[in-house]
């Protein structure tokens, strides 16, 4: 009798748990599209106010910022007539602060090269100097040249002035990078560049120690940081995480010690407004650095 009771209780518990999970999944799906979440999901403090309007009177959700739209925005033919590249550049200038290095972290299983390329182009146009693209399966890294082609294609499609935005492929040692002539650089990362990168740097240092060129006590945080520095990229100020997985999934851990992590539901068909909203959110944040 007692065993039967325990069995019934166990089944009820499991059913209630499944019901709760299903409810939360549904709730999460409802609140996560299409606006930016400054943290992972939390129904307790979800803010319905469009972030694009906050603190920035000029900004308003403008469908004509999308590169493939046509027509004029409400009330301002001048803005509508403006080249999107210039518009994005001006948008960047309106922000109180811009990340110097922005990381795109794709946690989704589906990967869209064209959508990621669009986001990279927006980053560069807005004035971000360094952009990294990361996914934990290494798909973008293995197809690095395809991504680079998409980026160049997008720039051509937008008719961005070639003399300003012409592209040079960076000298690649262990990473394939792209230096865009407007002063921005793009790199593609995978788990190989995360902990495995730290291990390689550690092995290199230990090799020097074995050859008696260095001593163990020579190693400090700054020395190790120099060993890890990649292609002159500074640490990312901001990582935009796409997808519903709440983890960095091996994104280079050393470099993200002070990085703001902002979540977006998906990189698939992401529009410029939502991307820019994330930048606005970043601009409003204040790093306190222990103080």
């Amino acid at each position, binding site marked *: 009798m007692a065993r039967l009771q325990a069995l019934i209780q166990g089944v009820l518990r499991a059913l209630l748990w499944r019901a709760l999970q299903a409810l*939360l999944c549904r709730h999460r799906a409802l609140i996560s599209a299409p606006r930016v979440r400054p943290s992972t999901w939390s129904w307790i403090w979800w803010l319905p106010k469009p972030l694009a309007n906050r603190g920035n009177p000029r900004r308003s959700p403008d469908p004509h910022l999308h590169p493939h739209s046509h027509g004029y925005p409400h009330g301002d033919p001048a803005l509508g007539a403006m080249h999107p590249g210039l518009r994005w550049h001006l948008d960047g200038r309106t922000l109180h602060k811009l990340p110097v290095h922005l990381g795109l972290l794709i946690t989704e299983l589906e990967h869209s090269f064209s959508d990621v390329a669009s986001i990279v182009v927006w980053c560069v146009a807005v004035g971000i100097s360094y952009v990294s693209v990361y996914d934990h399966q290494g798909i973008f890294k293995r197809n690095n040249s395809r991504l680079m082609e998409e980026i160049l294609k997008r720039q051509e499609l937008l008719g961005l002035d070639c003399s300003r935005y012409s592209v040079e492929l960076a000298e690649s040692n262990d990473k394939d990078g792209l230096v865009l002539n407007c002063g921005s650089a793009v790199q593609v990362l995978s788990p190989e560049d995360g902990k495995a990168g730290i291990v390689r740097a550690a092995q290199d240092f230990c090799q020097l120690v074995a050859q008696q060129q260095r001593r163990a006590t020579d190693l400090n945080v700054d020395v190790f940081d120099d060993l890890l520095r990649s292609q002159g990229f500074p640490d990312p100020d901001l990582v935009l995480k796409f997808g519903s997985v709440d*983890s960095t999934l091996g994104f280079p851990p050393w470099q993200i010690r002070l990085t703001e992590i902002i979540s977006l539901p998906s990189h698939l068909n992401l529009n410029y407004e939502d991307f820019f909203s994330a930048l606005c959110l970043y601009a409003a944040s204040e790093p306190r650095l*222990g103080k």
Partner: protein
Amino acid sequence: MSWIKEGELSLWERFCANIIKAGPVPKHIAFIMDGNRRYAKKCQVERQEGHSQGFNKLAETLRWCLNLGILEVTVYAFSIENFKRSKSEVDGLLDLARQKFSCLMEEQCFLNVCFAYTSRHEITNAVREMAWGVEQGLLEPSDVSESLLDKCLYSNHSPHPDILIRTSGEVRLSDFLLWQTSHSCLVFQPVLWPEYTFWNLCEAILQFQMNHGALQKARDMYAEERKRHQLERDQAAVTEQLLREGLQANADAQLRRTRLHKLSAKREERVQGFLQALELKRADWLALLGTAPA
């Protein structure tokens, strides 16, 4: 558990805890207990009072964790960066910590307090230890691996945290457990730490449960990749070995297998020897700390 706050869960809390336990339960949670100072400002009390409330909240949270079957908790109490605060605040915090943590030794669950800690220092220290191992002739540079680095961290006796929770709405890791949390569920909650509730904790665990499948899959995939890479490196080392001996690299599959096995067995021997020496070194250092004048 004398100092962990007394008081069972309410009926409703116990009911919800039971439902949550139907799903996967985390074994180890890490907390960045942020928001003590903002709480003090909000309640118009001294910063010290904010930290004291924060500690009380920690005691309460540990109680909830025990009730939920979570037996290991790591907290970020004090970073090297925090020494940038005023002298009186730093002294106050150190006194509070000394007071409150003095009775920890007899407890059976594990509470890890990261005190004057940054992850970069921890990782660098682990690499320095391995370099020391090379200097001592205990290790070869090629023995350096992710799993060995893991064993040289301060947290080597703990599993990686399943969840990292940061309160107060900040969405940064702030140099806390960067290595250990690369596949953990990150939960950023806007509540200030002294106002943390049982429901906030449940929310975090539910989030972990929703991510559990995807994270497990990602972790397994990552582990497979690491194993494959290690095997490739070992194969390359065996090839080099055979060529050096003037033998054909592809000749005998059995010979290759034997060499491969011998290579990894020797490495394992070196690693064990190094880890034992490291353990002794640390024990000596701790003993020295204990005898140092106060």
